């Protein structure tokens, strides 16, 4: 019989996120710093028109370099930063060692990836831009977000039956 904690680890091992998390616990107001990073991030999303349905259509029709430039340069800067963090063993501000764990391959990355790609080209938004679009006043995107949350839930419900 698996304990709740065991399931938790098993569940997380298939997920890209939640593995490299801090083991420290903080009061809720420590989360304000993530709110501030999110605000800066949301402003970049809008100002660079990354949340624009048109930019996504241009990307998938090879009609503009913009989105390739954004994602490509983000990966380059991200990779250089990660390399520096590893090389100099940089710690977090709480003094925790930053470690990166390998994520195993599973077929979900193919099937799920294709399904997400289909949705991305229809809605013109990956999950981040959904939040930003709502912020810009496109209120009907609340329905898109709720539907995406429902999709997440349905995946969780059928997870054991799906090929991975």
């Amino acid at each position, binding site marked *: 019989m698996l304990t709740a904690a065991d399931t938790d680890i098993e569940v997380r091992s*298939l997920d890209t996120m939640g593995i490299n998390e801090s083991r420290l616990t903080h009061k809720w107001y420590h989360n304000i710093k*993530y709110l501030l990073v999110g605000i800066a991030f949301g402003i970049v999303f809008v100002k660079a028109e990354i949340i624009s*349905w048109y930019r996504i259509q241009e990307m*998938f029709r090879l009609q503009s370099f913009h989105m390739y430039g954004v994602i490509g340069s983000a990966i380059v800067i991200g990779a250089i930063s990660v390399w520096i963090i590893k090389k100099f063993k940089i710690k977090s501000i709480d003094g925790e060692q930053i470690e990166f764990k390998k994520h195993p391959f599973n077929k*979900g990355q193919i099937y799920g*990836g294709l399904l997400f790609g289909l949705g991305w080209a229809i809605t013109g938004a990956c999950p*981040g831009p959904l939040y930003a679009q709502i912020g810009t006043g496109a209120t009907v995107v609340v*329905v898109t977000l709720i539907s995406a949350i*429902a999709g997440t839930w349905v995946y969780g419900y059928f997870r054991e039956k799906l090929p991975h």
Partner: protein
Amino acid sequence: MLEWIKQPWPWYVAGPLIGLTVPILLIIGNKSFGISSSMRHICAACLPANIPFFTYDWKKEMWNLFFVAGILLGGFIAIQLLANPATIQINPKLTKELAGYGITDYTGLLPSQLFNWPALLTVKGFLMIVVGGFLVGFGTRYAGGCTSGHSIMGISTLQWPSLVATCCFMAGGFIMANIILPFILSL
């Protein structure tokens, strides 16, 4: 200065800023950059229904919910204070194609003629808003991440499964935009 900020930002400004989110989140709290997980935490918080995938301590992941709330607020701030007064510049080929489907209003960042409340009651609107959203949520979780978690965080940490996932995101997008979407838009 403000006039300059109000212009659309080029990719070589926006991309590096987004890339910097990776080390910022790692350094301020040892957090891995990822956005689609927020929807899983919302499920875990609101309707776990004894599903193992949603029965975990979501409060530990609260930071992620603050992060996405920030993205929403950032969108609000950008449009209220820093909005570009000009209409969006789009490739003429796309404008021409969309005109064929009756899409001519380019005032917003997404076409208000497709994404509006009354559209929900039409087949086209339902497919684009509800079915599209469902695919985004189901697909990202099945894949274990989205553009941020896989394409940016995953590839930055040199994980080949994330590269596979990203190729599939793009393949799905190309199929939809070029083969299926023209049919949906003509409904």
